């Protein structure tokens, strides 16, 4: 039986019950990131945060906002926009919840300038697998009090706890912000030149067909460079499934060349090192991963049907022993998305 408890304490109670009964649960926010990880790690029963969608505190002058984990990202954006502010991670997708994008560490497209999503989480409240409500971090824009559990929770895919509350760092909305595109297959060389010439662009994204550029700043600085036209942000690569490859930004050009040779659809974030790749088959996933690994990177199946997720993570990351202990500490009965993470955690 799946549930959407109306309060955090009821979320915690449900988890405590599930732990006592040993019945696995899958936390769910907007449900936009549910095709990730080992397929066995998604129990049919889910625990939804849909009703935990309140605004808890917002002091615009502090540039911080505290919301419940189930708050839709779109609503958060609207609330912030009313005060001339924004959360740079909103590229995350329609219907996604704040807790969900945090749990899946889904950074926005403008990461080159605004940083990854993990840098914007200041305080978190999680309901652990055994139903404790744990607060970590602090609501101020800066703080080093105690261990950085907010970073641990970011990208833990609901396997350590359910994010029921988050305090986020917001940014003042820049005076001007615009995406541009320049069609043409010579994107790589041009993109690298942009990265050198422009001071802190929002994004430089290369696809097989075009170069996409986002500029952010004063109106005088947000002007289309030669050959670029105003446009929407790039679309997600085409393909039934999505792999996120990541290598050092210095080696991204090599990855792009390899993907070009494979004739795959991709969107590579220059200066960041990540590259979303559209794929159709296990064979293609393997190819992408081989190239990423050869360049000292990794490739994770980010969104794919179960049959393409036999090996979603690739080789086991270092520190598995520590990760297992963390799992055991936060979810002792192993009821939260069991086996979803690398190493079957």
């Amino acid at each position, binding site marked *: 039986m799946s549930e959407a408890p109306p309060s955090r304490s009821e979320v915690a109670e449900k988890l405590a019950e599930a732990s006592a009964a040993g019945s696995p649960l899958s936390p769910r926010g907007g449900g936009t990131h549910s095709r990730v990880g080992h397929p066995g790690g998604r129990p049919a029963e889910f625990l939804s945060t849909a009703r935990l969608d309140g605004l808890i505190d917002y002091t615009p002058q*502090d540039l911080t906002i505290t919301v419940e984990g189930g708050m839709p990202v779109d609503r958060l954006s609207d609330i912030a926009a009313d005060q001339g502010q924004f959360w740079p991670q909103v590229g995350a997708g329609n219907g996604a919840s704040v807790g969900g994008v945090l749990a899946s560490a889904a950074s926005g497209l403008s990461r080159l300038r605004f940083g990854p999503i993990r840098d914007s989480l200041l305080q978190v409240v999680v309901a652990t697998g055994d139903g404790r409500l744990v607060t970590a971090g602090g609501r101020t824009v800066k703080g080093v009090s105690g261990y950085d559990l907010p970073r641990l929770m970011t990208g*833990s895919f609901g396997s350590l706890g359910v994010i029921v509350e988050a305090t986020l760092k917001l940014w*003042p909305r820049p005076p001007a912000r615009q995406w541009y595109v320049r069609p043409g297959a010579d994107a790589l060389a041009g993109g690298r030149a942009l990265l050198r010439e422009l*001071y802190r662009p929002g994004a430089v994204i290369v696809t097989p067909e075009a170069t996409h550029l986002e500029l952010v*700043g004063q109106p005088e600085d947000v002007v289309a460079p030669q050959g670029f036209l105003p446009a929407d942000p790039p679309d997600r690569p085409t393909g039934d499934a999505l792999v996120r490859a990541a290598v050092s930004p210095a080696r991204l050009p090599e990855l792009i060349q390899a993907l070009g040779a494979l004739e795959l659809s991709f969107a590579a974030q220059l200066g960041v090192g990540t590259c979303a790749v559209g794929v159709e088959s296990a064979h293609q996933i393997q190819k992408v991963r081989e190239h990423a690994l050869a360049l000292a990177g990794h490739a994770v199946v980010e969104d794919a049907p179960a049959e393409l997720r036999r090996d979603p993570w690739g080789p086991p990351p270092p520190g*598995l022993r520590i990760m297992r202990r963390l799992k055991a500490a*936060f979810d002792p009965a192993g009821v939260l998305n069991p086996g979803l*993470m690398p190493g079957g955690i």
Partner: protein
Amino acid sequence: MPIAPATASAARFRELLDPERVIEHPLERKLYARDGSITEGKCGLVVLPETRDEVCRCVQMASELRLAVVPRGSGTGLAGGAVPLDDAVVISLARMNRILDIEPEVPCASVEPGVLNLDISMAVSHLGLHYAPDPSSQAACSIGGNVATNSGGPHCLAYGVTAQHVLGLEMVTADGEVLELGGPAPDPPGFDLRGLAVGGEGTLGLVTKVCVRLTRNPPEVRTMLLDFDSVTAGAATVGGIIAAGVVPAAMEMMDQKMNVAVEAFVGAGLPVDAATVLLVEVDGTPAQIAAEAALVDAVGRKHGAREVRVAADEAERQLLWKARKSAFGAVARVAPNYYLHDCVVPRTHLVGVLEEIGNIAERHDLVIMNVFHAGDGNLHPLIAFDRRDVKQVERVHAAGKEIIEACMAVGGVLSGEHGIGLEKRDFMSLQFGEVDLRAQADARCAFDPEGLLNPLKVLPAGSRCGEVALSRDSLPPGTWL
């Protein structure tokens, strides 16, 4: 677990390192019994490994002998994190001080933990790059110590603290295993152990290599000094600038007592009659600078700034920053000792908390000076005192506790950038409940189940697995409460 005094084990460590890199002479050990805080501990032995493998072997030896290990960088920490207690063995990483690799294309640099913060920026300046986090101690503190305390600095307002600039870490865990966490390739699969390890204060592992993100130098910089007749006006200006949508590169505040001390020390032409000054720096493209500087000027004047001095050239800019960064040194002219606090409050509460700190100083008849990262609400009330005056030291502790309580009362946090260490561990329960502290203890135990690394730091007594059976008496007198 029982922890033996390390001094008796010198011979065992000499099996691993050259004799002169195992220090047991009492006078030398005493040098390692302190850090930049006012705490003094007891150091059993000091070892100076020069390679990662030597670090591993030293940790394994300590583990075999059941010795508590205290990692140490430059010893400038202000929370007692590097202070050994009960004759623990100090593993100094200071000799691992090579810059291993610079990759301008990322841009990033791989460095050993003993490399000094400022040396990284110096080594890459010819590439138009720098390492952004700039603690005032940057000429002395090590990058390993920065990672362990998640250090901040004036320019972290716009650029973010250490955690945002650490791409990867190599770390030796308590059982002597080497972990490579992260690197220039973003978002490795699995839990973010690298993120958790930053700020671990030497309790999660010994950092033996760091891959730091480098930052491009801004095309232009403008530094401004605004002075005010009241602290309230200065603090209101800080809030006004942020509320108007500008997050400057840095925004620092110094009150009058601090100005007077600094001016006597540096001679930067600070207005010593002002109640407070704000040092604001904006950087970026010419258009950005023009817009943001105009806004800073306007907001400042609206709140009664008497003058807005713009640094005319790089020399003047350096002089203003020198004034800010020598503040702690300047205090030596006021009193022989100082106790520096590090709470953060929401920016909207700056005015009220600063007033309260003034009241606390008055109530306890103490000199409290303020120099701090105003832009992010990170206060550094500095209590000047003379440690030979026992009565005064008592008042220093009482006032310090009240300052912390005042900050917590408005939703602040215990530490912005210095860490918890020994100094604030028993205050942790002001910010966190029992359940929260248990979860933190669990995270720590996942790295160090036996409680070998820097025991007694960060978490209050009684909250950890494998906790060392040490009596409270082992805390040196004068250790924080």
